[in-house]
C-alpha cells in the first residue's frame, strides 16, 4: 500500500514502511524530482515561483507562498495515500517541514481522507521507542501484504 508519513521527510519512517513491504510516500521523492544544483551554500531544490501557484489547489491565495510551495510537494503525496503514519511533536532531527502552518494543513488533509491512520507520540525514552517501532510494525502488518517496489 502507499503509506504517507508525517513528518514527511522522516528517513526512519520511510525506511520502516519500506521494510514492511509498503511504498512510503515521502517528500524526498518530490524533492528529488526537482534537484538541479546540489551545493553546500544553496538549497538543492529547484522550486520555482510556479510551485506556490500549484499549491493554490490546496490553500487559498491569502495563505503565505511558503505554505503553498510546500503543499505543491506534499499535496500530490496526500492524494496518493492509502494509509498514513503520523508522529506527533517529533524533534527536529527526526524530520520536519519547517513550517507549522503547513504541518497543520497536511495533518488536516490526510485525516480528511478517512484512510487507515496510525497516530503516535514521539518517544522520549528507550522503552517508548521500542513500543513506537512495535506499534508501527503492527500497523503496517495490519495493512495486509504490501507490494514491494
Amino acid at each position: 500500500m502507499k503509506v504517507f508519513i508525517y513528518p514527511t521527510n522522516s528517513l526512519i519512517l520511510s525506511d520502516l514502511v519500506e521494510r514492511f513491504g509498503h511504498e512510503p510516500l515521502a517528500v524526498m521523492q518530490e524533492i528529488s524530482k526537482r534537484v538541479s544544483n546540489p551545493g553546500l551554500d544553496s538549497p538543492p531544490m529547484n522550486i520555482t515561483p510556479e510551485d506556490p501557484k500549484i499549491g493554490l489547489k490546496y490553500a487559498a491565495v491569502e495563505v503565505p507562498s511558503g505554505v503553498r510551495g510546500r503543499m505543491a510537494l506534499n499535496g500530490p503525496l496526500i492524494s496518493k495515500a492509502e494509509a498514513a503514519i503520523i508522529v506527533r511533536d517529533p524533534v527536529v532531527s527526526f524530520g520536519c517541514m519547517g513550517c507549522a502552518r503547513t504541518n497543520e494543513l497536511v495533518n488536516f488533509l490526510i485525516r480528511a481522507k478517512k484512510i487507515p491512520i496510525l497516530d503516535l507520540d514521539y518517544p522520549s525514552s528507550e522503552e517508548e521507542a521500542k513500543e513506537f517501532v512495535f506499534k508501527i510494525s503492527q500497523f503496517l502488518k495490519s495493512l495486509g501484504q504490501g507490494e514491494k517496489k
Partner: protein
Amino acid sequence: MNSSENLVRIAQLSCGAEYSGIQAEIDSAAKQVNAVIVYPEIDIKDIENIEEEFGLKVASSDLKLLMARAKSIVTGKVHVDAVFVATCFRCAEAAIVRSEVRRYIHEKTGIPVISYSFTERTTAGTLLTRMEALTTTARRKSLLAREKQSGLTAGIDSGSTTTKAVIMKDNKIIGKGWVPTIKVLESAEEAYNAALKEAGVKREEIQALGTTGYGRFLVGDHLKADLIQEEITVNSKGAVYLADKQKGPATVLDIGGMDNKAISVMDGIPGMFTMGGICAGASGRFLEMTAKRLGVGITELGALAMKGKQEDVKMNSYCIVFGIQSLVNSLAAGSTPEDVAAAACHSVAEQLFEQQLQEIDVKEPVIMCGGTSLIEGLPKAVEELLKVKVIVPDNAQYIGAVGAALLVSGFIRPRI
C-alpha cells in the same frame, strides 16, 4: 555598480524563501551588487535551545533555525558584512520573528540589516535597490561618513515623477533644477542645464557628478557619473545634511511618486530601512490624483489640507481607485475641498504608518523629504499619527540630488 568592489557577505535568515521559489531571485539580486548570500552555520543543539535563549516561542522550526542563525552572527560565531531577514508575506508568526531578529542584530552588532516579506512574485528587480543599499552601507562606511560637500559637484535625482539636479560648491547649493520626468535622459539634461545655468557654471567645470533615483543607471552612464547610487543611502545623507542632524539617530521618511522609504539612520548612515512599492494609494501619485480631482495644483493641495479636517471625510479604501472614489463621494455629499485634501494626506500618512513605520525603530528627529514633504498637510498628518515633531528641511525636494552631490565630492578627480 563596480564589480571590482569588495565582495560583501550577506547572511540570509529566512523562512519559506526556497519553497516560494524565489531563492534564485535573491541570489541574482545579491550577485548584481557583487555580494554573496551565506547561511550561518549552527548546530542542531542551537535550534533546540534557541527559544529559551532568544526568549521567543514559535511553532515553526524554520523560524527557530532563523533565530539560531541570528544568534550565531551576534555571538561572532560567523562573520558577515550584512544581514537579509526575509519571511513569507501574510505569516503572522514569521512577521514577529522577522521584526525581533532584525532589531536584535541591529542593536547587538550594528551590522546593516534589512527585512523583507516576500511572495512568489518577488523578483530580483524588486530586491535590487534594497540589496544595493545594504551592500553600500556595509562597503562604503567611510564614504557615508562624509558630512561636508567640497569642491564643485553636481547631483541628479532621476525620480519616477520628477527629475531634480543641484550644483554645490564649498558646502553650499548654488544651482537647482526641477522638471517633471518625461523622457529620462532628456529630463535629466533639462534639470542639469537649469541647475548649471542658475549656478553660472559650465558643465566641464563640474569636478564630480553623482546620480540617484530610478533612472540613475541610464542617466549615470549617459553623463559619465562618478557615483551611481541608490536612493536609500543618498537620501539618508541628504536628509541629515539638510536638516543639520548628522550626529546621532534620526528617521528619514520619503513619500515618493511611486514608492515610499522609511529609513532609520545613525550618524547619517542607514541601519534599518523599508521600501514600499506595492500600492500606489500609499504614494505621492494618490495626492497628485486628489489634486487633479479638486482642480488645484499639487503645490496648492498642502495648504488646502492644512485648513481641513480629515475626520469629516469617510475613506472606505486606501486604494488609488476606490480611495479617490470615496473622496468623490464625499465631495458629492457636501464635504469641502479642504476636508477632502486633509483626508487624502491622512490616508497616505496612515498607510506609511501602518505598513512601513512598524518595520523600523522611529527615533527623533523625524525628517521628511522629497517633493511630497512640501505638501504641508502630509507632514502634519504624519505628526498627528506619530505624535512627534516632523522636520521638513529647506530644499527638501532636492534631497536626493543634494545627497548625491555631497557624497560624490569624495570622488573628485581631474576630469578629461
